[in-house]
């Protein structure tokens, strides 16, 4: 016989602090960011998000390299190279792919795997849950848009003839223009992808529908909208992908393309209204849908 005993740790009561709704919201945000990036998930969940991040980072580095190379040349090549506004064209497709991944990943598994019944048995309201998911979505997708812009901004400042601080001081407008245009992309695309993800049961299908609406749907709407008629001009507004780019051109005072909505005479502020309307409709729809699910 030995002196060893089996020690049952039993159940430990908890009388420490409880963080309430704010703690729950932070937990949902943290989990959302981890889920989109595949952190604490199986390896295959990391491949797509980290590949897109790697591509964005590489492209950012290439642009800085080009600006550095141009700055070494005797002729002024740097003014021909893409800067903040044009950079969105290079990154927006990566951003759209990332959004097509992030939106469905954040919403669909919770719903299809029945986890909502556990979440909403905690001190967590539908509104708090959705706000937290939205925060996670905006936070993680903004990285794709803002990180290359930040890298470019700092790179240009290092290369500037008037010095690092001088460049930053004379380009303060970038600090609101880039986030504003980024918000345009994220709010519009976020509104669409979350609305789709609230009804579709498979992440791949939701991503495909989102990309289809932006590409094929936009192209069809643009063609119909350009046909002469009393109402058809409004159909051009359904070419959704153009709106963030119109806002981008408006903010940076550049012309990169002739958009369908511009061709039929809509001012850029109409695009701002469309973005806000679609985002608002998306939020309303998702909230309505989840109130029924809770």
């Amino acid at each position: 016989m030995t002196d060893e005993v089996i020690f049952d740790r039993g159940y430990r009561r908890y009388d420490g602090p409880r963080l309430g709704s704010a703690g729950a919201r932070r937990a949902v945000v943290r989990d959302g960011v981890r889920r989109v990036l595949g952190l604490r998930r199986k390896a295959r969940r990391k491949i797509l998000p980290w590949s897109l991040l790697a591509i964005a980072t590489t492209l950012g580095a290439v642009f800085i390299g080009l600006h550095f190379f141009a700055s070494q040349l005797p002729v002024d090549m740097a003014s021909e190279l893409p800067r903040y506004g044009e950079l969105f064209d290079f990154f927006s497709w990566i951003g759209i792919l990332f959004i097509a991944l992030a939106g469905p990943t954040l919403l669909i598994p919770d719903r299809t795997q029945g986890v909502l019944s556990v979440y909403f048995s905690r001190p967590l309201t539908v509104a708090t849950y959705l706000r937290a998911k939205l925060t996670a979505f905006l936070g993680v997708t903004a990285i794709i848009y803002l990180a290359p812009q930040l890298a470019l901004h700092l790179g240009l400042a290092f290369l500037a003839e008037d010095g690092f601080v001088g460049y930053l001081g004379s380009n303060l407008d970038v600090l609101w223009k880039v986030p504003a245009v980024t918000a345009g992309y994220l709010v519009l695309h976020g509104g669409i992808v979350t609305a789709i993800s609230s009804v579709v049961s498979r992440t791949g299908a939701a991503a495909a529908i989102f990309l289809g609406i932006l590409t094929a749907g936009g192209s069809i709407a643009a063609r119909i909208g350009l046909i002469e008629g009393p109402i058809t001009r409004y159909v051009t507004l359904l070419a959704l992908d153009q709106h963030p780019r119109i806002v981008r051109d408006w903010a940076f005072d550049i012309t990169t393309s002739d958009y369908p909505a511009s061709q039929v005479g809509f001012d850029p502020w109409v695009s701002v209204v469309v973005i806000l309307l679609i985002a608002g409709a998306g939020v309303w729809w998702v909230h309505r849908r989840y109130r029924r699910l809770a």
Partner: protein
Amino acid sequence: MTPAPPVVTTKGLTHDYGEVVALENLDVEIPPGVTGLVGANGAGKTTLFRILLGLLHPTEGSVTVLGEDARTEPMAIRGRVGYMPEDQCLPDEQTAADFVAYTAELAGIPPGEARRRSSETLFLVGLEEERFRFLGDFSTGMRQRVKLAQAIVHDPTLVLLDEPASGLDPEGRDQMLELILRLSRFQINVILSSHVLTDIERTSGWVVMLDGGKLIRSGPLASGGDQRSVVAEVLEYAPEVASALRARGYEINVAGPRISVTGDDGSVERAIVEEVAAADAGLVRLVRGASSLEDEFLAGRAR
């Protein structure tokens, strides 16, 4: 000595889904301890749980949980209550440790403490070794244990367990019921819903019987059932088996495939097996001392 206040009180509780009345004029007081909520599928058990959590509002009547009004203070209630749903509710691509910690955080426990409690609770339910495995790789029994762990990780005063032994093999069921009994020893109040009456008899000190949304009975449960009675559930030829047993001199009650045989000596079980074999019938279940609650439930339904 003042009796402990009830954990749940309902007064005139009614809830309908349009034409369908899920709960009708329910007046119940559930005391501390383990309470069994008995009823067939569609009896209103899950609806009652959802009302207790404040996820559904009563069409009429009032509900108080741990002294809080479920209609006006659902957040206060949910912070002190744990819920184990009957259906699938686990994310396949998260580890058990991460998921349980996450649910603790959702109840307001700080992240570091949530991870510690997650490990401790998974140890308690017997999943210490498996806690870093992904939930998608878990067996049904392991998944039920994780569901129980997430329900108790945040130190609730009351846990609502919806069919906790559902889908488990006999050994798994036995272990789950043992875990539930342990909860009561930790001063955690339990309301356990089940349509398996022997589970309720084994774990509960109080029983609430529902049928079609109506209350059949709410009251203490006599422990052990009637030990003189043996219940056999027979596949086909139940009347023939019953007649043969009656001819042997036993006192018999028959309700469909269910035969209740009264007799003190240990020969009753043998006699049943012999007569079932002789009639070429199938024996689904044979249990001593489990008839009281079942009889009561069936009598209540008949009324």
